[in-house]
């Protein structure tokens, strides 16, 4: 397999619109990198630049240390799986999977062995004589992956491969991709706007917004130590709650509530005494307690959890809590909550506050 080094890459279109700004990333051998972000953040553009489908305006792209910035897509030894599958409808699954190798004029017997091996991995052996139209969306996406596998590329690129599938199939296919990655130990880059896919698949996640990389890290790092308000709000479902608060000694005073700070939290906020900051609290870090009260505006029982939406102290400041178990809150009830984990962000820069570091 291969290592990929993306160095200071920019993408500027002919109309001077810049889609990607100074993208830097070193992808290790066998690593699965997920690019995540909202629509239009430049993640697909980045992937297409890596694939060679878009020109790189500035910067360098190295594959195994070799500069491939100007190398045409066909010579990059990368395989891309698209959201739309891009299968040939008039060909059978076998022919679709064999097509790229046939074009390369490889030995038909070798092609046969590779196609059968890929079909075996993907559980498509019994479907090889069928046409794509006879398969479900998930199976078609597996064929698209199989077409990549037979090429034995150095890097696999996935551009939102599960977006066309329904929720159930998406979950199943996601697990298959993960198994495939473990089995092939291949270097993969995967683009999605779905944070669940990102968190479950990635070795490392690259979170992007407006063409800028916001944070690169493991799923736990992004979830537990977000770099800024954007990452904190994008990763996690339901999204993190944000409150404008002031640091008053060993407590935080917000609109309609006051919460105490632990000595560690106080140390973390050193230098922010008397200043306004943004307090972030994940819904799952809110528990029933006595720190503040909220008027319940909605309650959703999900079986294992209950989502409670409310207004803090009748101020209009919204809060979402994900409580464990089945809770019977009704609209208009008053709920009492506490925070058991807090994230602090600088109000001006929106960057995370980490003990003045």
């Amino acid at each position, binding site marked *: 397999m291969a290592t990929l080094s993306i160095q200071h890459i920019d993408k500027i279109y002919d109309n001077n619109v810049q889609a990607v700004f100074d993208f830097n990333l070193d992808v290790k051998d066998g690593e699965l990198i997920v690019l995540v972000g909202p629509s239009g953040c430049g993640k697909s553009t980045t992937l297409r630049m890596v694939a060679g489908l878009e020109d790189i305006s500035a910067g360098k792209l190295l594959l195994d240390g070799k500069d491939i910035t100007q190398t045409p897509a066909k010579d990059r030894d990368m395989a891309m799986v698209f959201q739309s599958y891009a299968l040939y409808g008039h060909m*059978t699954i076998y022919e679709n999977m064999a097509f790229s190798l046939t074009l390369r004029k490889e030995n038909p017997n070798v092609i*046969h062995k590779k196609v059968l091996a890929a079909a075996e991995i993907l559980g498509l052996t019994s479907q090889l004589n069928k046409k794509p139209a006879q398969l479900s969306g998930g199976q078609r996406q597996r064929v698209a992956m199989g077409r990549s596998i037979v090429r034995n590329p150095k890097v696999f690129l996935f551009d939102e491969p599960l977006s066309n599938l329904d929720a159930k199939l998406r979950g199943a296919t996601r697990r298959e991709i993960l198994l495939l990655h473990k089995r092939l130990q291949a270097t993969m880059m995967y683009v999605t706007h779905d944070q669940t896919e990102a968190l479950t698949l990635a070795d490392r996640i690259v979170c992007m917004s407006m063409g800028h990389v916001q944070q690169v890290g493991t799923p736990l790092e992004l979830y537990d130590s977000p770099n800024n308000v954007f990452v904190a709000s994008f990763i996690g479902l339901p999204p993190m709650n944000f409150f404008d608060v002031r640091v008053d000694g060993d407590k935080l005073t917000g609109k309609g509530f006051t919460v105490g700070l632990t000595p560690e939290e106080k140390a973390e906020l050193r230098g922010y005494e008397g200043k306004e900051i943004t307090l972030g609290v994940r819904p799952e870090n809110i528990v029933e307690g006595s720190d503040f009260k909220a008027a319940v505006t909605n309650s959703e029982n999900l079986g294992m959890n209950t989502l409670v939406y409310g207004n803090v102290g009748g101020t209009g400041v919204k809060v979402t809590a994900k409580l464990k178990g089945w809770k019977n809150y009704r609209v208009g009830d008053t709920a009492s909550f506490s925070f058991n984990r807090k994230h602090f962000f600088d109000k001006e820069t929106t960057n995370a506050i980490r003990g003045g570091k």
Partner: protein
Amino acid sequence: MTEMDDRTIQRDRMRFIKNTASSSLAILGILFNVFYFVSIYQSDVGTYYYKILIGVSIVYNLIFMLAVFLSSEGVKNYQKNYSYLLAVIGIGQIVRVFILPMQAHSATTMVGGAEVLVMGGGQFAWTVGCLLISAVCLLASAVINLVKCKELADHMKTLEANKA
């Protein structure tokens, strides 16, 4: 990889790859038949019997093209019975050499007061050649398909035996 392995793989490929060799040969057979009838319809012996034969030939050509096209699709999918149909039609093409072309080649007509052959030597050779090439294509298509069908059937039996 040993030679035996290669042969086994070649046979196994037939499970997924269509028999394009037989199919293409059958289509080629149709093509040369078209060349044949374009050529033969340029000749007119002038007898009522010959005109009847031309009429029958037109109908036969339509049936021929339909049957061979269907057979080409059949052999593409390794269907044995279409081989027999192609073989019969191929033999029919050889027989056809002795019907219209022979009559046209042996008949004469008056052009400008001189007696000339209805079908000259060159045209005769071309017409007969087309028919014979068409026949060879159809027969080859049939034979190739029969051989492949047998190989595939044997291979499937082996696979099933291995499964069991």
